[in-house]
Structures are given as structure tokens and as C-alpha cells.
């Protein structure tokens, strides 16, 4: 082999390596910059106090509380439905049937729909159609559900995170050995009993990974809740499903772009971003670790 070719080869391999390390470097820079910017403001008080002086001082407790409430309601809606869909796809549907393939296609489409479209859908369907409909039927036209609130925001977010749950659970269900199912059936258990006693317990870690990933996604997304329930500032915590709520991501967005004194609140913004980034980072890391263990088990 000629010398020239060896050099080209070396350059090419170097270029690919450079690209990979460039991405890693950007990830590290992003993490470091956000942490350096936020670490001075970050404290226990910052996490547990209410905003003060028109958000110029104080903490972000309502935003954390709102985000937590959002992901809890979201998970309650998304995880069961996602798990059941995954069970259908692996246990009931024939791999090649048109129905199963359509469902798979729909799930993948759902995963690629821009998040702002979910926001529009939440507004058009949940608030304007379901909410206003509920107001008309139950409250005689009095406005309660037909406006942005945490329930509609959570349900909108649940639609967004449904594919995440489905994909994780499906992957986990496939790692449950076939012999376990066959043994259960051979002992006289019915199909549903087998699923309930063998398949679901066997894929518990997958359901957990799916939930964690969904929570991380739901905590970070802002576009779907822009007009389905997030509020700029609230003096009280949400107490009912028809209340609006504060949200970490929305808080960052508003503070960084819409507030009158962006420069003065910069430390708060960095600290809030750090909290959100750390939250999603830790959740994702947990999911990655569980998942890699799961994959090793599958091999």
C-alpha cells in the first residue's frame, strides 16, 4: 500500500474521531458552563423558596412543584396506556399483520410530531373541545375546564411521551424468555394469566425505564404547555386539576426572553437551567444504566 493512501486513511480516521470528540466536547462545555453559571445561586433555599420581588430574588419552588405535579399526572396517564399497547404489540398482534404495522407506524409518527403540534392539539381538543364541552354539560356554560390548566397540560404531555413508554416496554417484554411463557401455558395458565403473572413482572425494569425516560422528557418539554396551562407567575401552588401551574422549562424561557430585566436575573436563570438540566440528566443516566443492564441480560 502506498504511503499516500496510508496518509489519507489516517486523515479520514482522524476526521471521524474528531467529529465524535467534538460532540462530546460540546456536551461537556454545555454542562460545565451551565453548572458554573448556576452554582453560586444554587442552594437549598433556592429550591424551597417562592420567587420574590417580581421574580428578581427568591427561589423556584412553585416551578419545581408544578413540574413534579405535571409529570406525575402525565405518568398516570401515559404509563398504563403505553404498557398495554406494548403488550398488545408483543403478545397479541401478529408481527406481520396490517394492524400491528399500522400501530407501529402510528407510534413512530407520534414520536416525530413536533412538540408544538401537541400544544395546538391540546388547545384545540382538550381545552376547546373536551373542556368547553364539560363546562356546557356539567356547569351550564360556566368557565372552569374550558381554559388552560394542569390537567390538560399533563394529558397533552402524556400523548407526547406515550411513544417513549411503548418503545421501552416493548424492548423489555422481548427479553422475557419464551420458555417462561411456554412453561406457564403448559401448567394450564391462560394467556392473560401468563401475561399478568409472567410477562409483566419480567419486564418491570423496562416499564421503569420507560417511565423514567417519559418523566425526563415531560419535565423538559416546554412547547406543549406554552398555551395549555403553564403560567408565568402564581402566588399559590396549584391545588386542583383546574388550576394553572408554574414549570421549570417555561420559567427559564420566560425569564430569559420575556422579562424586563434579563441581565439582573441572569444568575437565577442559570441556576434554574442547572436544576432542570441536572434533573433530566440524572433521570436519563439512570435509564441508560438500567437499559444497558437489560440489554446485557438479553444477550
Amino acid at each position, binding site marked *: *500500500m502506498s504511503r499516500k493512501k496510508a496518509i489519507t*486513511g489516517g486523515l479520514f480516521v482522524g*476526521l*471521524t*474521531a474528531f*467529529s*465524535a470528540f467534538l*460532540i*462530546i466536547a460540546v*456536551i461537556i462545555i*454545555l454542562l460545565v*458552563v*451551565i453548572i458554573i453559571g448556576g452554582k453560586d445561586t444554587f442552594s437549598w433555599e433556592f429550591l424551597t423558596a417562592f420567587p420574590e420581588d417580581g421574580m428578581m430574588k427568591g427561589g423556584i419552588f412553585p416551578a419545581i412543584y408544578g413540574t413534579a405535579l405535571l409529570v406525575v399526572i402525565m405518568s398516570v396517564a401515559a404509563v398504563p*396506556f403505553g404498557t398495554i*399497547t406494548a403488550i*398488545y404489540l408483543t403478545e*397479541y398482534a401478529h408481527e406481520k399483520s396490517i394492524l400491528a404495522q399500522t*400501530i407501529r*407506524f*402510528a407510534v*413512530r*409518527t407520534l414520536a*416525530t*410530531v*413536533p*412538540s*408544538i*403540534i401537541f400544544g*395546538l*392539539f391540546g388547545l*384545540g*381538543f382538550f381545552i*376547546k373541545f373536551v373542556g368547553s364541552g364539560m363546562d356546557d354539560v356539567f356547569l351550564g356554560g360556566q368557565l372552569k375546564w374550558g381554559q388552560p390548566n394542569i390537567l390538560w397540560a399533563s394529558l397533552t404531555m402524556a*400523548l407526547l411521551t*406515550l411513544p417513549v413508554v*411503548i418503545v421501552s416496554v416493548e424492548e423489555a417484554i422481548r427479553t422475557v424468555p419464551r420458555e417462561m411463557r411456554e412453561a406457564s401455558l403448559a401448567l394450564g395458565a*391462560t*394467556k*392473560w394469566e401468563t401475561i399478568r403473572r409472567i410477562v409483566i413482572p419480567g419486564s418491570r425494569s423496562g416499564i421503569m425505564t420507560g417511565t423514567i425516560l417519559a418523566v425526563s*422528557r415531560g419535565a*423538559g418539554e*416546554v*412547547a406543549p404547555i*406554552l*398555551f395549555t396551562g403553564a403560567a408565568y407567575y402564581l402566588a399559590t401552588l396549584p391545588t386542583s386539576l383546574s388550576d394553572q401551574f408554574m414549570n421549570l*422549562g417555561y420559567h*427559564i*424561557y420566560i425569564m*430569559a*426572553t420575556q422579562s424586563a430585566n434579563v441581565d439582573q436575573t441572569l444568575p437565577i*436563570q*442559570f441556576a434554574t*437551567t442547572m436544576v*432542570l*438540566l441536572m434533573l*433530566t*440528566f440524572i*433521570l*436519563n443516566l439512570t435509564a*441508560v444504566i438500567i437499559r444497558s443492564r437489560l440489554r446485557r441480560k438479553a444477550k
Partner: protein
Amino acid sequence: MEEPTIKNKFVFSRESLKKKFRLSEFLSEKIITGVAFLSITIIVLIFFFVFKESLPIFQSKNKEAVKVESVQKQEQYGADETAVTNAAGQEQYGDVPADRTNAAGQEQYGVTETDSLMTENQVQEEDTIVYGSDEATFKSLTGTQWLPVSDNPRYGLIPLFVGTLKITLIAILFAAPIAILAALFSASFAPYWLREIIKPAIELLAGFPSVVIGFFALMVMASFFQSIFGYDGRLNAFVGGVAMALAAIPIIYTITEDALTAVPQTYTEASLALGATRWQTALFVTLPAATPGIFAAILLGIGRVFGETMIALMATGNAAMTGINPFESVRTLAATIGAEMAEVVFGDTHYNVLFLIGSLLFVFTFSLNALAEFYVKGKLVKRFQGKQS
């Protein structure tokens, strides 16, 4: 002694071996199947409801056409009366009826593409004849101005499309080469331990909320690029595009990596056995074999950037301009929805136009996804399975 009892207990007849009807089995199967339909239902509902809220534009367009016709008649009468004496008036209105009928015809057939010159004419007309805000909408939908909040609102989508395409182009030009090369590195060259670091790290980047990337772009990247290039506006298409590349890289990387590792081992082995080096094998055998997958990866990356809202809202400056300068502020389709939906009056024309933008976004990303899916499936199956079997 025990034999008879056993025999009595297990008498298998054709009847007893038949599958029994169990209510719990029946119900669980039906419920699970029903729930599985949910994702299909959601897709249909999204399309229906997002599109439904944009429908009034198409309805008001008929009203508008009628109104335009009546105005046109009046003007024609006016022109007839003054035609001889008022030459200036004639000149002014001389080409109006032709344009008007064009516009009316166009609206009736629902064609949205028009000559930009004609659109400008229309915009000028709107300046002279003041309609109510509800009537002046559909005409200017293809206009070059996006001024939804003014006395005489214009809903020209052209600058939004230009802005979105510009951002998408910049983002993909950055993201695609970097992500594909990185995927090639981790699939072909990297030692096992390094791959086990790179892959999860990039997966973690996928988990970064877009609002965090947007904040980073707004606060850090914008100033950094400004100090390098020295342009005036801190926030522009370039900053937004690079930030969006960060969001697109994990998608392109992951799918490309999957496609590269899916290339049969025999290809690589054959190439190496023929005396090719590892980099030659990677560049001339593995990479071409994975083209459909890489194509799909880029398509999905485009879809991600096209619909990305928070980064666009925070890092692009949000001024609706149509120039091609990458250091100019732009406003994307998704950012327009995100920025304006909260302040809009429900049921207003502006509201409907925003939903129309939403439907366009949805249709576009849906088609991209469908294209990626079917193209790749067809190609890959042909390439690997078709040849082997």
C-alpha cells in the same frame, strides 16, 4: 386400586379439549386491543383537530370572494362613469379587475401559490381599500409580510417558510456531516470501551431539554459567535441553526449508527479479505451499504429541526425577514405558533392562521417520517435480505 379414579378424573373428549370461553380472557384481549388503537386514534385526532381550527380561513375565503366581487362591481361602475374624464383614476384602477378576478379564481380553487408580483399588488390594494381584519386574510397568506398584529393585519407565510428553510439548512449542514462521521467512528474504528462511552454520551445529549439548549445558545453561543464573526444582531439564523444542530445530532447519529452496524459482517469481511484496509472498508463498503439508513437519519433530523420550537424562539431573534443572509434574524413557523398563540383571541383569523401553520408543519413532518420509513424499509430489505436469500 387408584387407576379407575384417575381415569374418571381425566376423561378427554373432543368436547372437553375445546377452548373454553372465559370472560376474563375475552375482556382482557378486547381491552388491550382497544387500547392499542389509541396511538392511531391520536394521530387521526391530531390531524382532525389541528386542521379543524384552521378551517375558518377556508370558509371566510368564500365570504371574501363574494365581497371582493361586489367591491369590484362598484369600482367598475365607478370607472365607467369617470373613465373618460378621469384618466388618472382609470390608470389607477385599470389593472385592478384582472387581478381581482385572478384572486377570486385562485381562492375558489384553493391554490395557494401565486406570483409574488401579483401578491404585492394585492397587498397594495389592501392598503387603499380597508377591509375588516377578517376579510383581508386569505389573499395575503402567500404575501411577503407577516404582520399579524396591526390595524391592517398581513398573514404572509413566505418569510416564515424562508426562515424555517434557512434554519433547517444551516442546522443540517452542521449536524449531518458531524453526526455521520461520528457514527462511522464509533461503528468502525473506535475500540469497544470508547464506543461504550460515546454512545451513551450522545444519547444523553438527546435527553437535554430543548429549552436548555436554547438558553445555552441565547446566553453563551450567541455572544461567542458574535465575537468571532463580528456581526450586529446577536441573535440570528446562524446561532439558531447551530443550536438546532445540537438537537439534530443525536437523532442522526443514533439512526446512522444503527444502519452502519446493521450492515452484514460478511460485507466487511469480504472487503478485508480482498486486501482493503479498515478505513477503505468503512468508507467504500460499509458507508455505501448503509445509505438508505443514513438518508432516513437525515430526513428525521430535518423533521426535528423543522418543528423545533423552543430553540427557534430563544435563539433566532424572531424577526420575519426574507433575505438569504445567514447572519440575519429569522422567524420560523414553529416559533411563530409558540410566540403568538398565547396572546391571540380565540376564533380570530390570526388564531386560525396559526392553526393552519400547525397543520402544514404536521403534514410536512408526517410525510418526512413516512418517506423515511417506507423508503428505508424497501431499500434495506432489498439490499440485505433480498440478496442473501
